[in-house]
């Protein structure tokens, strides 16, 4: 119990807040005392004294004032350039090479480069994936006979490898985003997930949202995950019908009722799976009666025929063109790429891009990652997968086996494709913050890697010059040249406190990965 004094709620905006016309005067926000206090602390090294706009949260209409996490969390004062902010948001880690690339291309050039991902030569990574994890290119028919554990491991390891080492970094970030949006638990769907990841998520991650949604609705894996394959005219299963509205399109407050769920489940009867993982519409289990979903009427059919699938297709079209879908997807993308608390202005702006482009994800990403919004965006906590991929990018180990990294992801709390509920791994700082010791432990493990049979981190370059030069190199490789001054000083002190050798340098690398600034992006 820190305090129980009913003091006046601290304004989240602080003294340097931008004005916000949407902010009602009578509503107040409550903040954790410490949160407000730390947010207002001057950061070490803030010599330039630049003022940054801080986003002000939307009010919550509630009897009680509520806490909005993270709403005034600023960024490190060292994170001065919007180009650096762009690289952090658009990648799994601002390494020296990534920053150099961005500097060369400029802000717009780097965005264009990352968005036109198919033009980026990624053959080195794809060749490695094909060699190391050959099951990833196989069909469900073939994977049916493969060892389930091997399929899982190959899917997990290749996903980590691609996130860390692909040149198509922004694309990989969006693959992660959609993998959570259309989350499936590999314990339930098994090998079917390989095709879903490849032919749904990766195929459309930077395509058009309507295409992505429809591909997902025709995915055997999704049908199995949400029990659509158990749904039939006599006994419709509402699981998928509910989630496609609640989680995939309209959002939980998207204006549908329980009746709409029931009616949509009738529309979708017949959408199922055959053989070893082939989506199929089976007219014999389709409910041909009349239905009404969210005001859309579907007349009764005269007989069960293959045309019955068109009822569902019609509803998918309805859903992807619904304003609440535009709002839900725009808001969620803003939260992923920019800020945990997007403003109404931002949401409306991205909705209009969705509307104008038919849900073009590239166009929406481009609109979100603009100079002004990035400059004002608070930092976000890396989830364990992101954190681990960052560490791989920064340490650039020689990798014989990815097994260590894959198992470490379990310790970090984010086993890939292991989230059982259809909402996907949370993107909330309060969910992840508790598991910090495993990150520090992992940092020790990865920095110590020096095995010819598993993985090795080479420290030669760090030991080539002085301790100061070593810390400079850490700054470049781990922090994109924007390492907070407090961390720099502490690292230097740490290195100098011992013998400047391989062991000490590895420990310093471990501390860099453990450092506060390495957890955020």
């Amino acid at each position, binding site marked *: 119990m820190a305090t129980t004094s009913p003091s006046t709620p601290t304004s989240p905006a602080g003294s340097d807040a931008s004005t916000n016309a949407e902010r009602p005067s009578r509503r107040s926000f409550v903040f954790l005392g410490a949160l407000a206090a730390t947010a207002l602390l001057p950061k070490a090294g803030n010599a330039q004294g630049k003022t940054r706009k801080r986003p002000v949260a939307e009010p919550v209409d509630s009897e009680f004032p509520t806490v909005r996490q993270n709403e005034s*969390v600023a960024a490190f004062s060292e994170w001065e350039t919007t180009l650096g902010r762009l690289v952090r948001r658009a990648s799994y880690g601002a390494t020296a090479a990534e920053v150099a690339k961005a500097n060369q291309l400029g802000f717009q050039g780097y965005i264009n480069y990352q968005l036109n991902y198919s033009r980026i030569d990624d053959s080195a990574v794809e060749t490695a994936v094909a060699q190391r994890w050959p099951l990833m290119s196989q069909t469900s028919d073939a994977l049916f006979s493969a060892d389930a554990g091997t399929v899982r491991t190959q899917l997990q390891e290749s996903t980590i490898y691609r996130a860390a080492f692909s040149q198509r970094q922004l694309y990989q970030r969006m693959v992660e985003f959609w993998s959570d949006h259309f989350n499936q638990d590999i314990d339930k769907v098994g090998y079917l997930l390989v095709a879903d990841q490849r032919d749904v998520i990766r195929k459309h991650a930077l395509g058009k949202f309507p295409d992505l949604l429809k591909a997902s609705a025709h995915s055997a894996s999704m049908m199995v995950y949400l029990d659509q394959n158990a749904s039939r005219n006599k006994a419709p299963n509402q699981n998928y019908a509910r989630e496609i509205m609640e989680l995939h399109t309209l959002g939980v407050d998207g204006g549908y009722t329980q009746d709409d769920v029931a009616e949509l489940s009738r529309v979708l009867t017949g959408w199922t799976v055959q053989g070893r993982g082939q989506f199929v519409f089976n007219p014999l289990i389709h409910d041909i009666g009349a239905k009404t979903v969210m005001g859309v009427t579907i007349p009764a059919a005269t007989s069960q025929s293959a045309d019955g699938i068109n009822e569902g297709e019609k509803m998918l079209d309805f859903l992807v063109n619904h304003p609440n879908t535009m709002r839900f997807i725009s808001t969620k993308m803003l939260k992923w790429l920019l800020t945990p608390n997007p403003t109404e202005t931002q949401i409306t702006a991205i909705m209009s891009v969705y509307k104008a482009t038919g849900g073009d994800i590239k166009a929406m990403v481009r609109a979100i990652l603009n100079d002004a919004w990035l400059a004002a965006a608070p930092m976000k906590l890396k989830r364990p997968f992101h954190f681990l991929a960052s560490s791989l990018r920064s340490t650039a180990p020689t990798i014989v086996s990815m097994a260590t990294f894959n198992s470490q992801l379990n310790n970090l709390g984010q086993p890939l494709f292991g989230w059982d509920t259809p909402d996907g791994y949370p993107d909330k700082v309060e969910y992840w913050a508790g598991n910090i010791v495993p990150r520090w432990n992992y940092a020790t493990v990865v920095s110590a890697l020096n095995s010819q049979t598993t993985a090795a981190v080479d420290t030669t370059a760090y030991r080539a010059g002085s301790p100061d030069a070593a810390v400079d190199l850490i700054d470049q490789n781990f922090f994109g040249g924007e390492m907070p001054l*407090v961390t720099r000083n502490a690292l230097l002190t740490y290195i100098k406190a011992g013998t400047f050798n391989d062991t000490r340098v590895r420990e310093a690398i471990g501390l860099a990965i453990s450092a*506060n600034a390495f957890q955020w992006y």
Partner: protein
Amino acid sequence: MNEQHPDDCGCQEYNELSRRQFITTSAVGASAAFFPAWLPRVVMSKAFASDRDIIVSVFMRGGADGLSLVAPFADANYYTSRSTIAIPRPDSTAATKGLNLDGFFMFPQAMTGGAAGTGGLMPAYQLQDLLIVHATGQLNNSRSHFDAQRYMEVGKPVDPTLVTGWLGRHLASIPPLKPDAPLRALGVSNGLQKTLVGAPKTLPISDPTNYSIGGSATTQTQRLGFMQSDYAASEEPLHSAALDATNTVTLLKTVNFAGYKTANNAVYPNSSFGRALRSVAVLIKSDVGIEAAQVDIGGWDTHSGQDPLAGSMFRTMQDFSNSLGAFYADVIAMGYNVTVVAVSEFGRNVRENGSAGTDHGRGTVMFAMGKGINGGRVIMKNWPGLARENLESGQDLKVTIDYRDILAEIVQRRLGNPNLGFVFPSWTPTTFGVTR
């Protein structure tokens, strides 16, 4: 607490907190999403009973077969439904016969440390510190592990707006046992179990005996010092979590796990469940301020080859009962104020399937153990019977007691928390005399 409240009279007095105060004071990391506005207001005790129990919450993941754990030998349909996997009657001559509990139910030998019945959970039962609740579970009839575990842990069925667990809300609505404890609760797990979500100063710690930043022991303190200063100006909630974590690493280093000597010659099985309970026992006896632990045991999803007499179900039950039996001897019998509860998301079909296993069912058993538990009994609300016409959907033992009734009484009477409407929202519990 006391220092900040000069008006504290030391009596049982409660202070109604506004939601704002509650969230401000109780849980760093709390958010509107964690405690939605429709939850009742919290009444936070100003002075609290320091002798309230520590709770060890066990989740038997996978749907544990209550009809093997505590078998109703006096219900003839038990034997007709399970031709190959039934446990022989206590009055039979079979070497694998069960051990009579109350003339109607029996423990299989896996639960009693063998035929003599001097081990496992039998001593706790005989000393009336173990209560068995039968034909219990949740009213929500999901047979999906996925949904059933989630709703059981959350403590309210089918509500997507509630993401906190019942134990998390308990801890968030009661002052800490030790005001300066860096760690109030732990989930023995890589990620925090849903049961504990929402609890302040609570961390997932998969192995408390090895909760460290690793690397050289020589430089560990120095490196931990780097973390403490580097995170000093971190943003919430990472700032508090890092502080809690460094303090907990330091705290756990002072706890001698390796040299721990159990009381009463208790022997914990060298299983993940046994090791977890042993660690929890060490933490409790170290008096470091732990007031709740969530521990899981899997292996209950017995679709085939169940064999409660010698096979997989036998081994799982044996691990369960020997571990909890050791915990009883080591901790509870020594007089520590601890209550243990064990639940599972659902039971299994009454009739065995074609592969000598059982599929997902409904009603099962739950356990409560402690000096404050009115045990030595198997309680239920009229045995629903195992005849086909008495089964839910013609296949399952009916749920006659909602598991929240049992937990609510423990939360209120053993854990000293009056905020039942907050811990178990929208549920008016019935009291079954679970506590003494």
